[in-house]
């Protein structure tokens, strides 16, 4: 306890002589210039995209899912749910005319698209935060 007090007294004495450091003389000017530059850039070309276009792919995907699942019956039997993916009506895509397009490839592409949509939103948020 006695040592603690002596330690505090020693560091107190030492810091009595301490002084604040100073940045470069034109520091304030630099800050103001940086602010003005950022404001100009902001007016010319806003870095952040508006949010609504990013929601469009997600909305499009949701509409596609609703459209495809609309062809399914509304019954609630277990079997219908488990075989749901086999009965998906993807004929509106008509991609088989151009090239062989298996169901699993279709699902994979859909999942990848969805993942990209989500990641674009997350990436935008992160970039906004970093450059804020």
């Amino acid at each position, binding site marked *: 306890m*006695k*040592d*603690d007090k*002596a*330690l*505090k*007294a*020693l*560091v*107190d*004495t*030492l*810091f009595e*002589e*301490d*002084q*604040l*450091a*100073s*940045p*470069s003389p034109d*520091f*304030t000017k*630099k*800050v*103001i210039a*940086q*602010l*003005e530059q*950022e404001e100009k850039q902001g007016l010319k070309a806003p870095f952040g995209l508006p949010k609504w276009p990013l929601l469009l792919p997600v909305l499009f995907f949701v509409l596609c899912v609703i459209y495809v699942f609309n062809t399914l019956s509304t019954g609630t039997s277990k079997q219908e749910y488990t075989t749901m993916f086999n009965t998906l009506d993807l004929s509106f895509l008509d991609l088989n005319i151009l090239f062989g397009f298996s169901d699993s490839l279709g699902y994979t592409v859909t999942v990848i698209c969805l993942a990209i949509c989500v990641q674009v939103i997350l990436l935008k948020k992160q970039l906004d935060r970093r450059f*804020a």
Partner: protein
Amino acid sequence: MEQDNQPDIAAILQGDARAFAVLVDRYKNMVYTVALRMLKHSEEAEEVAQDTFIKVFKSLKRFKGDSKLSTWIYRIAYNTCLDRLKSKSRDRTNVALDTVQGFELQNMENALEVMIQNEKQELIRACVQQLAPKDAALLTLFYFEEKNLSELGKILKMKESAVKVGLFRARRRMAKILKKSLQSEIIKPYER
């Protein structure tokens, strides 16, 4: 201290660059000192200090006055330094927490007494340089900012009790570094 030349927040919010320059001038030394002691690099410290004031300007409209303006600015500065350290994974400086005996403290005090002011300032700078960033910030803010534990807690996002413990540990680490730095000064009188 905070009464004279008070920055005009309303004017800054309206985009008055002069009013903001007053704010920068008022707090730049403290912000820069904290950054310098945490990052241990003058150019980087200046960059971080600039970033701090840009953030202050951008988020000033969100300042509600729950705490002192200085507390709010130092918190932004402290967090900006932590972010910088995190991005470079450099928060590795730390000194083991050893006990310094009473007679050793007395020896150090005697050695300090014979030093002139400039030497002491240089010594502080060298010792703080060896402290971990958080300890360096804690001691700097404590000794320059009215020694107010509650305000310090708000800056560092810590409870008052944690600030007290942190200060105690930082002082012990400082004493250990000081002991090492003063080794030659302590030995000198015995050599005569």
